[in-house]
């Protein structure tokens, strides 16, 4: 509390970078834009490292006050920063992975005409995310929360001239808003009952309250509403629908925002609010159920997708489900551990997928990939590491975090464990499927027709989301099939070096003692006691999960390496059931029919025609017409006739005199 680390610099530096690139970037050359972007995000990372170096000597939690903001009677909200182990971990992940992705983006987006805009938005995102993570009160966190939603919208719709991208951006923002509504109501409840939004003050007030086991009390409501916000931001059921569509954005965006950082904001928020959730077991159970169901549901969709980015998107939703499952069984540090390892391997997977897409000239459909192992070796090896990590194979990072979650879930409710285990099987299966289809066998790129899909179906549309073949009018020129070189090629070192770094982290990340590090934060809430028991059982469960993962990989090997004809036969055999899964259970269509369409029609008929045109416009127009009529009537006073003027003057004078007489007489 004594030393001032100037934490405010950490979010502000990327903001400055965003401003410089945003305002002046159009006139800069690409190297300068890159330098500005890298400098500011790198500076933020350097500052975080500096804080990290002093971390052990700091009294925690460390609080820094920056400025007053709202002062209303006793209610006060300030610009303040809160640093504890959880914040430190998030900072390292966000700035570290963020910096790597900035480097990668230089290579990926090099050919894009709006190069400067991309980096401006990327830095802007960093600013908001860091505000979210460093915030000392819920309102400041909400600024960051909303801001990352904004940055997500801007970046998803980066190629805004493309209809599908613009719609995807809108969808993301609007679905997020539904969650934000829950978040806001929770904030209001906090202000009303606790009189403050500052973390320390709120948690102090919540601490002595009794645990709500019966019914839905105040803390349960707050918990459920916060969870609603987290469902929106972190793409859980029922608000996950925006994340697959968000793949319209450039791949670095998918890596940074929709894998490593923004979508984890929900998990971070729930963990930060663990004091509240610990007092509301009902809310916690809801969190666990949502997380488990989402993990399973998204995994089932993932096995039928053909677009490489969509597989990864559903995989992200599924892995986020695991993190919420962990929080739901009060294993917050396990959830955060998985958050960190997921940032590594999922970020790597997305960046690798970007490298793959770059290599094959824009195609994203796995059915037309294959055999890329020999063309893009670095990408191949790094993605192998990532696939093994996400499948949960020892000693890669994913094994440790996922197993910790499954172990803790087992202790609370075996149903969670069972569903989680099956989802792990599915995860291993679809990730291996991706790996086999992309890297093994023969390159099937020549089977791809140079189709010009006017409706922008991103499943098999060549060169739609690839920066490599965009020209300045935003017109999607068609990809490498007209480029001249037929063979896939490896990406430049600017792109492969971050891949290698992330691969290293995915390899050794599991050995980082995250849970021990986070202990002081979650000390009160965790079911810490149960941990020490039963190492034997834990070991057994680990064996089971590794075998299950291996089973998934084997099944993928069978279907996509050995007997390539089988998948199609199975799909045909399952018929309409397969079709339902392949069409994501028609959830988007259901939402559109149940929610979107009535809302749009209601708005059009009632609000637009009825209220806006009928009442507001009519009031304004009618008052104008009325004024005209009134002045038409009054116009007759101005007749141009001298004597009528004289008459009016005389009448007025008579009235005044009459009034004076009346006043005089009545006295």
């Amino acid at each position, binding site marked *: 509390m004594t030393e001032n680390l100037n934490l405010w610099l950490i979010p502000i530096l990327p903001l400055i970078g965003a401003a410089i690139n945003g305002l002046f970037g159009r006139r800069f050359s690409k190297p300068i834009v890159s330098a500005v972007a890298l400098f500011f995000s790198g500076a933020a990372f350097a500052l975080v490292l500096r804080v990290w170096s002093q971390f052990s000597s700091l009294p925690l939690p460390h609080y820094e006050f920056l400025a007053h903001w709202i002062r209303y009677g006793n209610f006060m909200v300030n610009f303040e920063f809160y640093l504890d182990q959880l914040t430190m971990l998030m900072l390292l992940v966000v700035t570290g992975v963020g910096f790597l992705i900035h480097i990668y983006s230089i290579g990926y987006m090099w050919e894009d005409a709006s190069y400067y805009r991309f980096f401006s938005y990327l830095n802007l995102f960093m600013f908001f995310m860091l505000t979210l993570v460093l915030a000392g009160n819920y309102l400041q966190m909400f600024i960051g929360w909303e801001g990352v939603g904004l940055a997500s919208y801007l970046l998803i719709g980066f190629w805004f001239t493309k209809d599908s991208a613009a719609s995807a951006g809108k969808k993301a923002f609007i679905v997020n808003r539904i969650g934000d509504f829950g978040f806001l109501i929770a904030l209001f409840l906090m202000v009303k009952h606790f009189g403050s939004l500052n973390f320390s003050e709120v948690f102090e007030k919540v601490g002595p309250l009794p645990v709500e086991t019966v019914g839905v009390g105040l803390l349960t409501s707050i918990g459920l509403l916060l969870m609603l916000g987290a469902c929106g931001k972190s793409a859980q059921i029922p608000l996950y629908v925006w994340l697959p569509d968000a793949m319209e954005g450039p791949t670095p965006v998918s890596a940074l925002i929709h894998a490593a950082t923004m979508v984890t904001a929900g998990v971070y928020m729930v963990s930060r609010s663990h004091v509240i959730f610990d007092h509301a077991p009902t809310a916690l159970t809801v969190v666990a159920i949502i997380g488990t169901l989402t993990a399973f549901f998204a995994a089932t969709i993932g096995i039928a997708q053909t677009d490489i980015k969509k597989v990864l998107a559903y995989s992200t939703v599924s892995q986020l489900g695991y993190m919420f499952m962990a929080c739901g069984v009060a294993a917050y540090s396990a959830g955060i551990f998985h958050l960190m390892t997921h940032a590594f391997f999922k970020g790597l997977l997305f960046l690798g997928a970007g490298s793959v897409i770059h290599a094959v000239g824009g195609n994203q459909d796995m059915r037309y990939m294959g055999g890329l192992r020999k063309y893009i070796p670095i990408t191949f090896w790094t993605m192998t590491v990532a696939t093994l990590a996400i499948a949960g194979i020892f000693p890669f990072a994913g094994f440790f975090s996922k197993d910790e979650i499954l172990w803790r879930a087992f202790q609370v409710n075996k149903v969670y464990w069972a569903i989680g285990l099956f989802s792990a099987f599915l995860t291993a299966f679809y990730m291996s499927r991706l790996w086999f289809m992309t890297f093994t066998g023969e390159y099937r790129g020549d089977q791809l027709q140079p189709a010009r899909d006017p409706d922008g179906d991103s499943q098999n549309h060549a060169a739609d989301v690839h920066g490599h073949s965009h020209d300045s009018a935003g017109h999607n020129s068609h990809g490498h099939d007209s480029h001249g070189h037929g063979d896939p090629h490896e990406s430049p070192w600017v792109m492969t070096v971050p891949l290698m770094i992330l691969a290293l982290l995915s390899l050794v990340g599991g050995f980082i003692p995250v849970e021990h590090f986070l202990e002081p934060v979650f000390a009160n809430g965790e079911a810490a006691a149960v941990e020490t028991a039963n190492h034997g059982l834990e070991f057994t469960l680990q064996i089971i999960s590794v075998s299950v993962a291996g089973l998934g990989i084997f099944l993928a090997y069978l279907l996509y390496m050995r007997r390539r004809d089988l998948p199609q036969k199975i799909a045909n055999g399952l018929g309409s059931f397969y079709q339902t899964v392949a069409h994501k259970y028609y959830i988007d269509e259901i939402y559109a029919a149940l929610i979107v369409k009535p809302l749009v029609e209601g708005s059009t008929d009632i609000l637009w025609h009825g209220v806006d045109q009928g009442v507001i416009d009519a009031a304004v127009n009618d008052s104008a017409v009325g004024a005209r009529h009134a002045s038409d009537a009054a116009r007759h006073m101005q007749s141009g006739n*001298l*004597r009528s003027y004289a008459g009016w003057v005389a009448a007025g004078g008579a009235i005044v005199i009459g009034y004076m007489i009346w006043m005089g007489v009545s006295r």
Partner: protein
Amino acid sequence: MVPLSYYLILSGILFSCGVLGFLIKRNIITIFMSIELMLNGVNLSFVAFAAHWQHLSGQIFVFFVMVVAAAEAAVGLAIIIAVYRTRETLDVDQVNLLKL
């Protein structure tokens, strides 16, 4: 002796005749003369009050009223002459370019 109110009533009658003439008449010179009539009525009430309150400033004010009336008559008649030159008429109802 004559009560004050008699003078005031006479003044009022003169004033009313002036207003009436202003409203009824169409010849602009006659209208002007009605204005003079009004001013005369007012002068009478000033002098009457001066006698009532035994204060001479009422008569002084009559002096000023007359000066103003004279100046106004001069300028007003000049205007009438100018209007007559352009409009060729002294009828007030026909000087109505502002008419709807």
